[in-house]
C-alpha cells in the first residue's frame, strides 16, 4: 500500500508555504475585488513564518502544529482561526501515526475540514474556502472507497478542489466581508477558495512525489 513516513514529511508544509508565498500578490488581488485585499499578505506572512520555523526533517504532525501556532498566535484576522483550527485539528488527528497512508490522510483532512467548519460555520455555497474543501475531501473519500490508490485519490482530490474553487465564481457571498456586496460579489473567485485549492493541490503533488 502506498504511504509516506510521518517523520521527514515536515517538508510538505514548506512546499505548501512556498506556493502560498509565490501566490501572495495573486491572492491579494482576488481578495481585493470583493474583499479587503489582504488575503495574500495574511497567508504569506503566516505560512512563510511557519516554513522558517518548522523542521523539514521532522514529522508532518509537528509541522502542522507549528503552522497552526503561527496562524493562531501571530496572524489573527479570519485566517488565524480558520486555517489555524484546520491545521490544529489535522495535527491532533495525525498525532503519533508513523506511516501516513490513504486512510490516515483521509482522516486527517476530514478532521481539518470539521475544524474549520466548527469555528467558521460556513456551508458549501457560501462562497468561501469551504467550497473547495468539502468536494475535495469528499472526492478523496469516494476514490478510496472505489478502491483507488493513494496517488489516484490525491489526483481526484486535486481535480475536485479545482472544480470547487471555480464554482465560487458564480456564487453570491454569504459570509465574510464580501457578503455585504450581495449580487455585486458574483462573477469573481473567492480568495479563500483559491488558497484552499493551493494548499490541497500542493499536498497532493508533494505527497505523490514522495510516495514509495
Amino acid at each position: 500500500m502506498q504511504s509516506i513516513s510521518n517523520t521527514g514529511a515536515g517538508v510538505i508544509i514548506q512546499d505548501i508555504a512556498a506556493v502560498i508565498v509565490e501566490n501572495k500578490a495573486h491572492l491579494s488581488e482576488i481578495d481585493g475585488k470583493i474583499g479587503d485585499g489582504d488575503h495574500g499578505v495574511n497567508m504569506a506572512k503566516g505560512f512563510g513564518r511557519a516554513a522558517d520555523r518548522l523542521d523539514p526533517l521532522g514529522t508532518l504532525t509537528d509541522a502542522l502544529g507549528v503552522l497552526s501556532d503561527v496562524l493562531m498566535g501571530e496572524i489573527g484576522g479570519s485566517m488565524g482561526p480558520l486555517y489555524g483550527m484546520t491545521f490544529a485539528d489535522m495535527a491532533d488527528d495525525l498525532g503519533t501515526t508513523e506511516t501516513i497512508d490513504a486512510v490516515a490522510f483521509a482522516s486527517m483532512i476530514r478532521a481539518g475540514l470539521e475544524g474549520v467548519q466548527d469555528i467558521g460555520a460556513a456551508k458549501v455555497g457560501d462562497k468561501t474556502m469551504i467550497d473547495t474543501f468539502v468536494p475535495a475531501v469528499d472526492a478523496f473519500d469516494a476514490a478510496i472507497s472505489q478502491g483507488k490508490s493513494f496517488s489516484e485519490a490525491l489526483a481526484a482530490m486535486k481535480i475536485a478542489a479545482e472544480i470547487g474553487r471555480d464554482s465560487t465564481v458564480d456564487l453570491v457571498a454569504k459570509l465574510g466581508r464580501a457578503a455585504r456586496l450581495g449580487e455585486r460579489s458574483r462573477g469573481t473567485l473567492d480568495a479563500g477558495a483559491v488558497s484552499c485549492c493551493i494548499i490541497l493541490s500542493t499536498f497532493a503533488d508533494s505527497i505523490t512525489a514522495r510516495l514509495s
Partner: protein
Amino acid sequence: MQRFINDPDDIVDETVAGFVRAHHNMVRIHDTNPRVVLSHTTPKIGHVGIVTGGGSGHEPAFIGYAGKNMVDAVAVGELFSSPTAKSFYDAIKSVDGGAGVAVLYGNYAGDNMNVKMARKMAKKDGITIETVVANDDVCSAPASEREKRRGVAGEIFMWKIAGAKASTGAPLPDVIAAAQKAIDNCRSIGVGLGPCTLPQVGHPNFEIASGKMEVGIGHHGEPGLRVENLKPANQIAEDMVRTVLEDHTLLKGTEVAVLVSGLGATPINELYVLYNRIEQQIEARGLKVHFQLVGNYFTSLEMVGATLTVMALDDDLKSCLAVETASPAL
C-alpha cells in the same frame, strides 16, 4: 502612496511603540505580548476588567481608549484585521482582578472567532468572561437582522459606559448589562467621500468616483446602502440624522449623546460644519443633545468621510457618561 511608513509589515508594531512612548503616563505594553496595550490602572482586585480589541488603522481606536475608567486592555490586530486569539487571551488574563472580565468588541467575523477561542483558553484558567458585541452600524443590515450589523464608533460609548460602571465596583453582570444597554441604544452611519490604502497592498481598497459619495460605508470601506452624487454638507447631515433616527424609536424629549468622527483625512473644520447641522436636526426632532464628541475618534486610515453615532440616554447612562476618564483619546 504619500505616507509616513517604513516596512509596511512593521507599521503596527511601530504604531504601538510610538503610542506607548507618547502616552507612557497612561498605558504600557504587555510584558510578553507586544500586541496588547494595558492601562496603568489595571488590574484592580475585585473590579471587573474591560477588554476590547480590533484591527489597527482606526487610531485612536482601539488603543487610545485604554486608560483610567475606560478600557483596561486592548488586543491589537494587523491593519484592518482582527487581533489573534492569543492577544485577546493575554489581554483578558492581564485585567482579571477576580471579578471577571467584560470583552466588548465589534461584530466582525474574525473578531468573533478570535474572541471565541480566547474565551475557551481563559475559561481553562477559571476566569469568568462575558462579551458584548457592538452592532451599531445601521446600514450594514436591516433592523430585523440587527445581529448581523457591524460595530463602529458606537463602541466608544459602550467602552465609556462600561468603564464607568466597572469603576464603581459593580459586578460583571451589571457591567455587561450597562455595555449592552449602551450599544443597544446606539445607532451609527458612515458616509465615505474617498478611499483608503493599506500600505502592504499599495492601491486603494475600493473606489469612490469624484463627485460621488458612499452612504452607509463601513470602517474598512465595506459598501454602503447606496452610491449617490456628493451633496452639500447640510444635506448629508440631514440624511445621516434621518437614517439613524428612523432606526431608533425615541420619544420626544429623549436626551442623546452624539459622536461625529472623521474617518482620517477629513479636515476638522468640516466635521464642525457637519456637526452644526446635525445638532440642529436632532433638536428639531424634539430630542436634546446632552453630550457630544466631534473629532477624529474612530478613523479608517486616510479615508475621507465621517460617521455619526447617536446614543439614547437614561439617568443611569448619563451618570456613567459623567464619570471622568483619562485615556489618550478621551
